[in-house]
């Protein structure tokens, strides 16, 4: 479990920096999939969809600054209400791509790195030279 977000993040970074041809192929497909997924039409950001029922994301959410936390709660409650009413937001209130910021991912990566470091120290073998 530990390191799964790190792995995905670094894979994506690797592709965009080291395989530009592959990245060029995938990016329009990515745009199409985001639009048809429709989470922006419910007023959500991508990081609101990350499954939070695990200790890593829970810790990351606890580290959010207060205003980011309140905004997240608002977006999720609004999306719940829309889901209940089987409706989408009016077109003017759809989330724009600039607003779809990966706000939670840096905190998740930080928490994962810390857990990974702790695992490393707990399982290391000491060799005296």
């Amino acid at each position, binding site marked *: 479990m530990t390191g799964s977000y790190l792995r995905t993040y670094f894979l994506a970074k690797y592709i965009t920096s080291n395989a530009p041809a592959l990245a060029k192929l995938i990016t329009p497909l990515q745009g199409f999939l985001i639009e048809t997924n429709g989470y922006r039409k419910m007023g959500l950001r991508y990081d609101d969809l990350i499954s939070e029922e695990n200790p890593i994301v829970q810790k990351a959410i606890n580290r959010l600054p207060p205003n980011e936390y309140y905004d997240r709660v608002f977006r999720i409650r609004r999306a719940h209400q829309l889901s209940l009413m089987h409706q989408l937001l009016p077109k003017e209130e759809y989330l724009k791509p600039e607003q779809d910021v990966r706000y939670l991912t840096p905190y998740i990566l930080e928490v994962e790195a810390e857990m990974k*470091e*702790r695992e490393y*120290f707990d399982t290391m073998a*000491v060799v005296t030279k």
Partner: protein
Amino acid sequence: MLVSSTSACLRRAASFSVRANASRSLATAAADLGFESSTVDGIKIATKDIAGPITTLSFVIKAGSRYATVPGVAHALQRFAYQNTPKRSGLRLTRETELLGGSLTSELTRDSIILTARFLKDDLPYFFEALSDVFAQPTLARHELAEIVGPLLKLDAKLAGADAIVVASEGINSAAYRKGLGLPLYAQATDAISIDTVRAYKDAVYTKSNLAIVASGADISTLSDLVSTYLEKAPAGTASSTPASAFYGGELRFPTTAGNVLSFGYASDVSPTFNVLASVLGGASSIKWSYGTSLLSTTAGKAYAKVTPYNGSSLLTITATGSPAEIKSAGATAVDALKTVAAGVSPEILKKGIAGAKFDALYALEGPAGLASVGKTLLASGSVPAASSIVSEIESVTAESVKSLAEKILSEKIAAVAVGKVSELPYADELGLKA
């Protein structure tokens, strides 16, 4: 993989080359205490090159609670020591210290924050780098305050509140000085300490001009080179100014179940007369199975006198502990002792007082615990305290000055604190003092 990188880093640190440093001034030796001192890059260093396998290294920083912008922020900054820095995380520092063998402690007094590392002599470069990182570039992350440091601050405050003598000491300082030295040592629940407050305070006080590095078991040239290697990038800043402390006085009472304490305090500018009077009054046992022959020894340890030397002020406290009845009689004995001194000091009593004061003053500078006091004097006056001048100052105290100090305490307004079952503890004027 991680182990080899750790040991490689340690080997690299241990094999740094000794560089000639043009900005290093000539080392001066204060022969009596055995310290050699110097100034490198604006940082004062003093070291005692003693034999033995253990080195003690202290960073003494003029960042104590008296300089706090918000009450309690100095406590938070002290508790932030040894957390994450850009080079290594707090966890990594702890594990590496455990592997090498050593101890890292941080201490807070009203005058300074003291970061102390004790380790085997060969590990000096590693621990110097560790302390320099803590001083020069701590990360001070928001989540650390919430997850790690915040709970520690609460615990410290809780433990302090459960110790009646600490509560009394905080009360005496608060009544005596109000602001500055009167600010509380510990962060209370009512204090609004945010990460921005801590960062601002750290930017203000963790500067080269506020730092004194004191070591025992290291030589001056190695230390000077380490300073220029690791502390070059630290902010220079200006030294925190120490405003003069005025003495106010007053009476405070703290109801608590933590025990009963009655304490009186009087403060003035630094003077060896305070030390001699505290020694003449005495009370604390320095010889096993005996309370000595000082004026307060008849209370069998229930009442004792102590002098706390701050930077720019000396505070004399007379403290009585025990049950309310014991405190009443010990307090009465203390006031009688003051009246005896105010009536006149015989030469033998003065001699005993001077001898006790000399020993206490020099003992405070001794050993690893004494490095903090040496650093405090180094920061305040620019030079290491000289044993000969301390001795001559105390020996020049006259019976007349001790008598007049006792007269002042009996006639002027003092600070008085009662802790515990306050309804049964006496007020200052019931014992004959003014508060």
